[in-house]
C-alpha cells in the first residue's frame, strides 16, 4: 500500500434504510483508515452532517424521502468524493456512466465495493462533475423539475416550481423568487432554464425567467423594451426577443 492510500479518510453514509447503512458499515470495517464520521437517514441530515464533519467521501443513496441523493449532491461542496448507491434506476445508472460518477448497485458485492472505493480515493479532493448536469441526465426524458432545492447555511428549503414566481440572474448566483422571498443559489440562469418546463417558464430577458402564469400584463417601457407586471406587482424587464417568446406562448395557448 502506498502512503497516499494510508491517509485517513472521513466518510459519511447516507441511506434511509437501517439495513442498507449496515451493509456499508460492514464493508468499511476492513478499511481502518476510513473513519465513518456520521450516518444519516435522510437528505436534510446529510446536508447538515457534511457542513459539520467536512467528510472526504460520501456514500449517497438516491431514493430517500424529501431530499433525493441528487438534491443532496446539489447542496454540498463540489470537492467531496461521492459514491452513489441505488437499487434500480435505469436513468440514474445511465447518467452515472455518462458523467463517470461512481455508483454501487444494491445488493452491494464486496469486489465491486472495493473497486468503487479505490476509484473514489484516487479522486479525493478532485472536483466532481456538476451536480445539476448529472441530475438533469438522470431525469426521465420529457420530465422537468417539479421543485428546486436551496441551502442557507445548514437550512434546506424546497421550492415547488408551481410556487416559483421568477428567477433573476445575479453574477454567479440566481435568485429564486417565491412567495415574496428570494432564495440565492449558486447556479447559472441557463441551467435553471434547462430544468424548467418551457410551456410554463419563459426567459423574458438575459437575466430573467418568469412563471408565465404570474404575468398579468405587459406595458411598453422605453424604446424596444417592455415591462412584465406580475400578480404581486413586481415589474420585470422584457427584452425584444423575450417579448417574442411571451407572445409565442400566448398565441400557442389561445
Amino acid at each position, binding site marked *: 500500500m502506498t502512503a497516499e492510500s494510508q491517509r485517513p479518510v472521513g466518510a459519511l453514509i447516507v441511506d*434511509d*434504510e*437501517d*439495513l*442498507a447503512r*449496515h*451493509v456499508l458499515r*460492514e464493508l468499511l470495517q476492513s478499511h481502518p483508515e476510513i473513519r465513518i464520521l456520521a450516518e444519516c*437517514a*435522510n437528505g*436534510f441530515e446529510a446536508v447538515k452532517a457534511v457542513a459539520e464533519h467536512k467528510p472526504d467521501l460520501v456514500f449517497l443513496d438516491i*431514493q430517500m*424521502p*424529501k431530499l433525493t441523493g441528487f438534491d443532496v449532491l446539489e447542496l454540498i461542496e463540489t470537492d467531496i468524493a461521492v459514491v452513489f448507491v441505488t*437499487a*434500480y*434506476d435505469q436513468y440514474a445508472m445511465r447518467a452515472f456512466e455518462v458523467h463517470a460518477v461512481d455508483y454501487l*448497485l*444494491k*445488493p*452491494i458485492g464486496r469486489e465491486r465495493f472495493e473497486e468503487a472505493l479505490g476509484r473514489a480515493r484516487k479522486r479525493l479532493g478532485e472536483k466532481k462533475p456538476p451536480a445539476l448536469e448529472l441530475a438533469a441526465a438522470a431525469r426521465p426524458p420529457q*420530465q422537468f423539475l*417539479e*421543485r428546486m432545492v436551496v441551502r442557507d447555511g445548514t437550512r434546506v428549503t*424546497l421550492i*415547488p416550481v408551481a410556487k416559483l414566481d421568477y428567477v433573476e440572474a445575479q453574477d454567479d448566483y440566481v435568485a429564486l423568487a417565491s412567495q415574496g422571498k428570494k432564495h440565492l443559489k449558486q447556479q447559472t440562469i441557463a441551467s435553471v432554464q434547462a430544468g424548467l418546463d418551457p410551456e410554463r417558464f419563459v426567459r423574458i430577458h438575459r437575466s430573467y425567467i418568469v412563471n408565465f402564469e404570474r404575468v398579468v400584463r405587459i406595458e411598453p417601457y422605453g424604446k424596444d423594451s417592455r415591462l412584465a407586471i406580475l400578480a404581486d406587482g413586481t415589474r420585470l424587464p422584457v427584452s425584444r426577443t423575450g417579448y417574442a417568446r411571451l407572445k409565442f406562448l400566448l398565441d400557442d395557448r389561445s
Partner: protein
Amino acid sequence: MHPLLNRRSYLGAYFAVWVPLSALLVFLIKVSGGVGTLEAVVLLVPMAVLYAGACLSTWYVCRATPLKSSGILRVAATHLFEALFLSFVWMQIGRFYARGLSNFPMFAGLEARYNRNAATLMIGGVLLYLVNVGFFYVLIAIEASRVAEARVLETSILARDAELKALKAQVNPHFLFNSLNSISALTSVDPAKAREMCILLAEFLRMTLGLGEKSSIPLAEELSLLHRFLAIEKVRFGSRLQMTEEIQGNCMTALIPPLLLQPLVENAVTHGIANLPEGGSIRLTAQSNNGRLSIVVENTFDPEGTPSRRNGMGLENVRRRLESRYAQEAHMRVTADQGKFQVSLSLPAEIREEAR
C-alpha cells in the same frame, strides 16, 4: 360473395324495393300511351323481376370500380356502358316476350304497341340501373365500415388482453433489489431473519406468478399475498411502516381479480411511507353490504412531495382493470387530503358457489 345472396333478409328487402319501381314502370308505360293496365302489368311485372335479377350482377361491377380509387371518369364510363348494354338486352328480351303475348287473342297487337314504347322502356332501364348502382355503393360503404369497426374492436380487445396480462405479471424490480439488499445485510446481523425473508420473498414471487393465471381469487388469497409483501417491506422500513387491517369476515370469500390490491399497497409504501422520514401507516379495510364489496386502502403521505412521486402508473392500471372487468359496475375513487391518501374501490360482491 354477394351480400344479397348471402343474407335472405337483404334479398327480400332488395326485391321489395323493386315493387314500387316496377309499379312506376307500369305507370310510365300506361301514361306514355296505348297500353291497357292489365297488359302493362302482365308485360312489365315479369320484366321488372327479370331486370331486378340481372341488376344483382352490377354488384360485382361496383366492387371492381370502387368510387374512391377509380376516378370519376372511369366510374361514369363503366356504368353508362353497362347501363346501356343491360337495358338494351332487357328491352330486346321484352320484345320477344311481347311477341309471344301477342299470340293470345286478349293481347293482340301488343308487340306493335311495345315497339312504340321501346325507347321509353330503355331510358327507364338505364335509370333503374343507375338507382341500383347507387344503392350498391351505399351497401358497399356500409359493409366496409362494418368490417373496419369489427377490426378496430378486435385489435382493441387483443391490445387490452395483452395489456392486462402485462399488468398482472409485473413485479417492481426496485422492490426486488431492495429486498435482496436487506437480505444481504441480514445474513451477518441476523441469519435466521435473513432466511425468513428469503422464504417470504420466494412465497411472494410464487404467488404473484401463480395468481396471474387466474381470472379471480378470494379476497383472503390476495390478503395473504399482501401480508407477505408488507412483511418484506417491514424489514426494510422497520418502525417507519405501520399497518392496520379491518376486514369483515364475510368478505374473505368474495372474489376479486388477482393482484388488484397489490399495486395499491405497493403505491402506499413507495409513494407514501418511503417519502416520509418518520414513516407512516397503511390502513386496509374491506366490507360487504347489499351485494357490493368495498375496499379502502389508505396511507399517510407527504403533502409537500411532488405529485409524480405520489401517483404512479399503478392507480391507472387498477382503474383500467376494473373497467375492463366490471364496466360500469365498479367504481374507484382516489382522494388526497390532509396527508391522507385514499383509494376506495366498490365492486359487485361475487362469491364462488362451490366454495360455500
